[in-house]
């Protein structure tokens, strides 16, 4: 990102963002056009409140200020991946930040209006996968880490190992699940707190520097 103007094509852009996935964007020079495309402010980036993740479909941008707490991300995640509607087993997690989160914000705290969705970081060196005694978490051909439910024994080691406790063992199936970057959460987010910006728009905006 610091090397602005070098975004030449879709693949190159995705590769650039893959390096930045889940990491701080603070301190990087981002063009006004790209900020606009991502729907975030320069201040939000500077204050480290924006995270991006390189999805196959585009760039997933998480913007806490836009989160309205409707939980539709969790709803769409579980309808799509679990065939039911739930909060606890959702791969994206907003409810745990909505009421009285571990970091002291949420509707029942003094920091009432600060709530936001947590997403899987798709870590390069995944603590969840490393901790799994059954090696049930593997990377597919796109580099997305998935749970092999044949191998998973539902022990919860992945949940405990993940610094953000994103993988969750389904109490009914006793299998862990984690984000597979399907994009249902962002597609159904009504406020743009979660958004997937298609790569061609990122390329186009990146070139307007």
């Amino acid at each position, binding site marked *: 990102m610091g090397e602005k103007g070098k975004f030449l094509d879709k693949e190159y852009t995705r590769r650039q963002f893959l390096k930045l996935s889940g990491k701080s964007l603070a301190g990087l020079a981002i063009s006004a056009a790209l900020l606009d495309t991502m729907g975030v402010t320069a201040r939000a980036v500077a204050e480290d409140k924006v995270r991006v993740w390189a999805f196959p479909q585009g760039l997933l941008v998480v913007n806490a200020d836009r989160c309205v707490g*409707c*939980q539709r991300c969790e709803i769409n995640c579980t*309808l799509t991946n679990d065939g039911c509607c739930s909060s606890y087993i959702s791969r994206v997690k907003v409810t745990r930040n909505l009421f009285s989160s571990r970091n002291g914000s949420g509707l029942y705290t003094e920091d009432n209006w600060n709530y936001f969705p947590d997403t899987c970081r798709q870590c390069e060196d995944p603590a969840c996968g490393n901790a799994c005694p059954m090696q049930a978490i593997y990377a597919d051909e796109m580099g997305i880490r998935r749970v092999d439910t044949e191998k998973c024994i539902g022990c919860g080691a992945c949940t405990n190992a993940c610094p953000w406790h994103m993988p969750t063992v389904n109490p009914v199936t006793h299998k862990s699940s984690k984000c597979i970057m399907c994009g249902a959460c962002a597609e159904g987010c009504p406020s743009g707190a979660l958004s997937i910006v298609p790569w061609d728009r990122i390329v186009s905006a990146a070139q307007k520097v």
Partner: protein
Amino acid sequence: MSVKNGINGWAGTIVRVNLTTGAITKEDTLPKYKPYIGGMGIGYKVIWDEVPLNTDPLGPEAKCVFGVGPLTASGVPCSGRMNVTLLSCWSKGYSIVDGHMGGHIAHAFKYAGYDAMIIEGQSDKPVYIRIEDEKVTIEDASHLWGKGTYEANAILAKENGPEFDVASIGPAGENLVPMSNIITSFGNSAGAGIGALLGSKKVKGMAVRGTGAVKIAQPMKVRLLSNYMIKDLVGGNNNHTVPCHAQSWSEYVATNNRWQGAPGITWDKASRGPIDMGEQPSGVINVAALRCNKGVFDFGEIAEKYTVKQGGCASCPVRCYTQYDMDPLAEYDLPTHVSNTCMPIIKMLEWYPNHKDAEGNSVPSTHDFVDPKDAKMILGGAGSRAADDYGVWCNYGNLYEDFNMAYSTGVLKDVADRLYPGEWDEIPWDLMESGDPRWVVECYRRISLGKGLFSDLGLGTFRLYEKWGMDDPEKNVAGVSFYDFVNAKNFNIGHNGYPRHHGPENCWQAGTLYSMMYNRDCMIHHLINFCSSGAPYNEITKPVLEHFFGEGCTDAQKKYTPINENKIKLAKWAFIGKQWHDSATLCNWMYPMTIATSKKRNYVGDLDLDAKYMTAVTGEEYTREDQERDSERISQLLRAITAISFKLNLDSSNLRKDHDRVSDWVFDKEPDFKPFEEGTVKLDREDWEKSLDMWYEAMGWNKETGIPTRATLEKFDLKECADKLEELGLI
């Protein structure tokens, strides 16, 4: 967990908490309650079966039923509401009423595995109910008793953990003030006196966590239907479907409505700089939540200055709870974070009537704070937070309209001198007269005490008017019946102690009819939503409505016409539809999808959508006819219960005369107009009597008494109701 139970839609279990014995028991939902859908329907059935209708509403034999339905937490948008049913301790006849709360607790409750919770008996010490999946326990709440709801909810949340949602009553409920509620999330509440009922049982609140899931028969169908609804059908709050400010994609622009989001409208106080709403075209999901901007509708563009974001309920893409940081309140040592919507926040100026200066001139009691005309918003913020903190319910505005009328007509002073000698001088009127935000806080504090002049306001209109002689011209210094007289503050739809909730002022005879059908304000939005959607009447609203309900079913604003069969058809659809929404549960502020945002649909909504959701969620073919049959069953039960309550508690055998009597102002207002002239919303007495005749006929009720016939009740499998009515000589 329903996924465990294998049931689609319903959680499958009802939990019963007996506070006298401490017993927690569970029963299956479906065998008995499926014909009553859920939520309100379960509540009515439980009260009918288990609570004699002359029970003391605050006695140990009273019960309340918190309930959700098959669509709650199913993924369906706007399915985040929880119904609570109880016997009224404040409205005429002391019959059945409901409160309804949004926020997020309905989802937590359903995920925990329950369709309803019946609370019965009475605890001898303060408790709260803790629900964590299958574990339901009664916990000590001694440390919470006496605290405001904000502090109580914060403690409950902290004690139980981040995944718990909570709700609590305030001092008003603890002190058995009838105008009391339970508060959840931030400013979401269920009213109707549930605070007092829980207070009588020493229940401070609840903490709920559910790690389960709602099983869905066709999950992708639910997702697709939801996307279709958000893209093509639903608009802003109250389903206003035309943007209020010009947007490049929109064929029309509304004059004023609840779709205020537009380019240049911002959340100024977003924590990292203003967020512009941009355009929100029909067909795009990811901007739907930016449409409403309720604060701008409530207070004008000044609201942007203090808006952080827009909150609301679980599953809802339409955010009607603007979340503010109103710094001017800090100067008064009041909390600056406030959030609410509609009545509890927009009408706080009613606590600040004009007062007399030293020369006897009537002078305003409010002033600007930082910007011109910001008093309504700043005082609204202070008042809404105080009302919620003390757990005071406003009876859809009657609470402060009663105060305003009593103060302005001299009744308040007269009553104070007669009933509460010495108290008047203890009241800090200087706060009111100087427009101080602490005045409205003081009003709610005094109401919540359960004793003294202001607490009489908390009795609710019916008992207040009786106590203060406001129901009889000969018993008050103003010399009027406050139910009947023509006054801009008088919204009493009848003599039962509650106001219209969009009645004759917008919704002609239809709104007046269904405003009379409950034992509290009706809260029906079926008609007001399309009346105010912003769609042009002749080009869209009229043809769409006539497509659904036939010629002449609807009136233009201030151009009313005499009653006809299609108007009755429309009114009945709205009345029974409300029961559907509170049973399913779906938000009646948003549903039904009558007018659409989509031009390619010719703006025609989809009245079958709710049934399509039911089919997709439950896997059982469910049609609009099924929906209306089940909803009418609940509606008939409501009417039968009301008739029995009126007989047992008032010795009345005639609901037409004693329950459905409309206040005189509805017919007498705007004396320069005749009914049905363009420009007036007054109704005609003769036409009203005809409307009642037609309404009772459409509902299958006796025209003389307004009570359901045996044939009608048996049609809906309510033979027991018919037997009871017959036993009491009512049919």
